[in-house]
């Protein structure tokens, strides 16, 4: 394992005990989100998925910034770091470079990850550091009590925009794709199985995994997503992306999406329409054009896509960094500090 065993706590390569359960991932800290907050559901799903990953608990680290969402690490009985606003990805990058064998997760919010921390997010993604980044998007600043965020709708009235926001919102999936992230997905706090599935997929991905999770903040931005997350409308207003499958949605799968040139169209199936001409999802396309095009789909014109937009393979930063070190060690022979101190040119002064 190269140069990093020296920093391990001794048994970092221990196998996961088969017996880990959800409870093992619940810390002793009282959860302090508002009653009804969507964060609870996300926490529960992550705690549910963790024991299934076969990773020893002590090898898992959750790192967050600041925000309601960023309290997440306190509630996970793993290693955790509640850092400062917007910078979680930078700590995670340093940790992963120093300790490639750890499973490093980043939890961030729409303000933390896209406002103050937008740049770090992009750079972590483009470097393909093997981090699992969960961005809880509630389209509001929760912790500071209700200012608009970079994902808030245009015109939104909040504490800091009493006359309505005049900023055009940012699309997190689009930003991640522009950074050439190797794994980009979206889920939400109301479909627990889907959420668990996406978290699992992210965990399984080797490389940066970015997951946007729509999360309801029932205190400062209640109902932000219910127009498509509520059970009765969900089928008609969302489309679940599945690799290699045509884009079908609607109650009973009665609608689909096809392309006209570069323009997506919703078509009715059932009455004559076949799935053959529909757009088929390809999460593995090297070029992110399809994923990008899908990221634009939005209600009411289109259903909102959920699932994995992109999942491709590329060497990760920490692996390549380790390889350069290992190769240098091999090439340079045993590390001779004395030779380094001596340098290329010396002279001697006699007594």
């Amino acid at each position, binding site marked *: 394992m190269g140069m990093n065993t020296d920093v391990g706590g001794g048994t970092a390569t221990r196998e996961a005990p088969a017996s880990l359960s959800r409870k093992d991932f619940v810390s002793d800290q009282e959860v302090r989100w508002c009653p009804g907050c969507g964060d609870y559901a996300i926490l529960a799903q992550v705690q549910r998925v963790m024991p299934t990953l076969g990773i020893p608990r002590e*090898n898992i680290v959750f790192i967050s910034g600041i925000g309601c969402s960023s309290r997440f690490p306190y509630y996970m009985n793993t290693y955790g770091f509640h850092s400062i606003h917007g910078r979680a990805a930078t700590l995670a990058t340093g940790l992963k470079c120093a300790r490639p064998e750890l499973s490093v997760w980043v939890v961030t919010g729409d303000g933390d990850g896209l406002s103050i921390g937008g740049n770090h997010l992009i750079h972590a993604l483009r470097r393909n550091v093997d981090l699992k980044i969960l961005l809880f998007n509630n389209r509001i600043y929760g912790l500071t009590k209700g200012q608009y965020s970079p994902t808030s709708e245009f015109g939104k009235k909040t504490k800091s925009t009493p006359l309505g926001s005049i900023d055009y919102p940012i699309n997190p999936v689009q930003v991640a794709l522009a950074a050439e992230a190797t794994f980009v997905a979206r889920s939400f706090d109301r479909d627990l199985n889907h959420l668990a599935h996406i978290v699992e997929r992210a965990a399984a991905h080797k490389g940066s995994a970015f997951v946007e999770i729509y999360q309801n903040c029932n205190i400062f931005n209640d109902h932000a997503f219910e127009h498509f997350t509520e059970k009765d409308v969900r089928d008609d207003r969302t489309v679940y992306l599945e690799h290699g499958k045509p884009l079908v949605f609607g109650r009973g799968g009665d609608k689909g999406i096809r392309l006209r040139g570069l323009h997506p169209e919703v078509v009715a199936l059932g009455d004559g329409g076949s799935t053959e001409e529909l757009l088929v999802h390809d999460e593995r396309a090297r070029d992110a054009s399809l994923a990008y095009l899908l990221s634009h789909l939005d209600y009411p014109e289109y259903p909102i896509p959920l699932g994995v937009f992109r999942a491709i393979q590329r060497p990760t930063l920490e692996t390549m960094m380790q390889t350069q070190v290992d190769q240098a060690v091999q090439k340079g022979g045993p590390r001779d500090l004395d030779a380094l101190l001596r340098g290329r040119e010396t002279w001697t002064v006699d007594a």
Partner: protein
Amino acid sequence: MTTDIRSGAVAGKPREALDAVTIRFAGDSGDGMQLTGTQFTSTSAVVGNDIATLPDFPAEIRAPAGSLPGVSGFQLHFSSRDIRTPGDEPDVLVAMNPAALKVNIGDLLEGGMVIVDTDAFTKGNLAKAGYDHNPLDSGELSRYRVFPVNLTTLNANALAETTLSKKERDRCRNLFALGLLYWLFDRPMEKTVRWIQDKFGKRPEVADANLRALRAGFNYADTVELFTTHYTVDRARLEPGTYRSITGNEATALGFIAAAHRAGKTLFYGSYPITPASDILHELSMHKEFGVKTFQAEDEIAAMGSAIGAAFGGAIALTGTSGPGLALKSEAIGLAVMTELPVVIVDVQRGGPSTGLPTKTEQADLLQAFFGRNGECPVPVVAPATPADCFSMALEAVRIATTYMTPVLYLSDGYLANGTEPWRFPTTESLPDLRVEHWTRAEGFMPYLRDQRTLARPWALPGTPGLEHRIGGLEKADITGNVCYDPDNHHHMVSLRAEKVARVAESLPPLEVFGPPTGRVLVVGWGGTHGAITSAVERLREEGLSVSSVHLRYLNPFQKELGEVLGGFDKVLVPEINLGQLRFLLRARYLVDALGYNRVRGKPLKIHELAGHIRSLV
């Protein structure tokens, strides 16, 4: 034995011994002045002189050829005595063009030598340097001894037989000049000959041309009665041992590699390029064979964040920058203070405020290092005193950080970073053992337990079963480390963090006074002014004056003896390249009416000016 090159004006004697000489090579960025200076330096080191050098880079990458901003300089001080600075004022100026003359002539010692390439004093070049006349003809250089040499022509003639293009031939001009100076100061050419052969091994015709130029310069000086005298500078009585020459930035890089090696750990360096700190990144990234991991972050905040992450993971974590970058890191340094993680932050100070004078030196980040963070946020501060001392203080910074579980600020400066001095490098086994113990037992583990002596909390690493815990920037409950809003706990923790830093003093070597421990004037310095201050004090003591000095390499906390030492003198003077930052700290701490000597000129202090000022105080 004369001690002043000006006396060389007295003609006749073919060889005259000098104590010390300061030469400044100056020319266009493209003229190879750094290289010429470095060769002269190596050769002088090998013949046994004590040496100190300082390059003076232009602020522009490649300003237009011949222009004032394009002038690049290299100053070298070599001596038969123990010297500590690259010299106040050059005795000899080599000016390859009018711009180089104009920029540098003001610094030359009155009566000093000026060697100029007259071929470069064309109308065009004169105009580019802002001359409306030729200073070689105007008499304005009459206070100096001018040696005009049609260097370009002579060099071109010497290389007439080579196959090189005119441009390539002209590039050898600097070696012609070097040859001249080798004759003038009676230096052997072997080292440079070997170096040329090595460097241009793959292009024999270029190697040959450079060798010819070097020899031609030497022979020209020997043959032509240009210089009436040549000079010798005897070997210095340095401590016996094997030496190398080293810059502060190199020493910093090697120091941290050595520290990580002695800790048995990976060195992680997260940084964002910035003058004059970038060379540390360059140097470290060339030493991956020591397990060094370098990470060029997207900005300074990310660099600091990555170092905190690496420290959490158990690496020897380092980040490096200059003043503006330190400002950006300040919030994240606070996080390292709250989470009590060992991260070393290197600040290679440069001229400020704001972008300021990026290529110039200054000492004006001391108070930023102390106070540039929100809340009560103390960190230990250390500062190397000389280029080679950068190595020792790097080891000290790591020792303090890992022993006390705290971020440490390491203040270098532009002068130290690029200056060189001979270094009697240590052997690995003579270096301190920096191994650390990580907490591994699950029983009794609490993230904010304290070592009774150091007040350090345990360094418990991810990957250790049973120690799963969470840390962060919110106030911590004592011992458990849980988030805690309790008022008394907060007061306790704020005081405890302060006390922990204060305790570092217990582990520091005693403060050494240079000179008698009591007397009339005590000069207190820190950082890169060490050479100038010590030389000035030494000079004054030789004059019989009651002057001592202390040079602080530990700024926070101060060494325990400092208060007493200050009390032993009638006057305390604090020379600094800022408006009085250490002075401010001393006044507040010890209520001593410390006086200031402050020259914020982007340059090292001058020994003779400082000595004059101290003299006026005694």
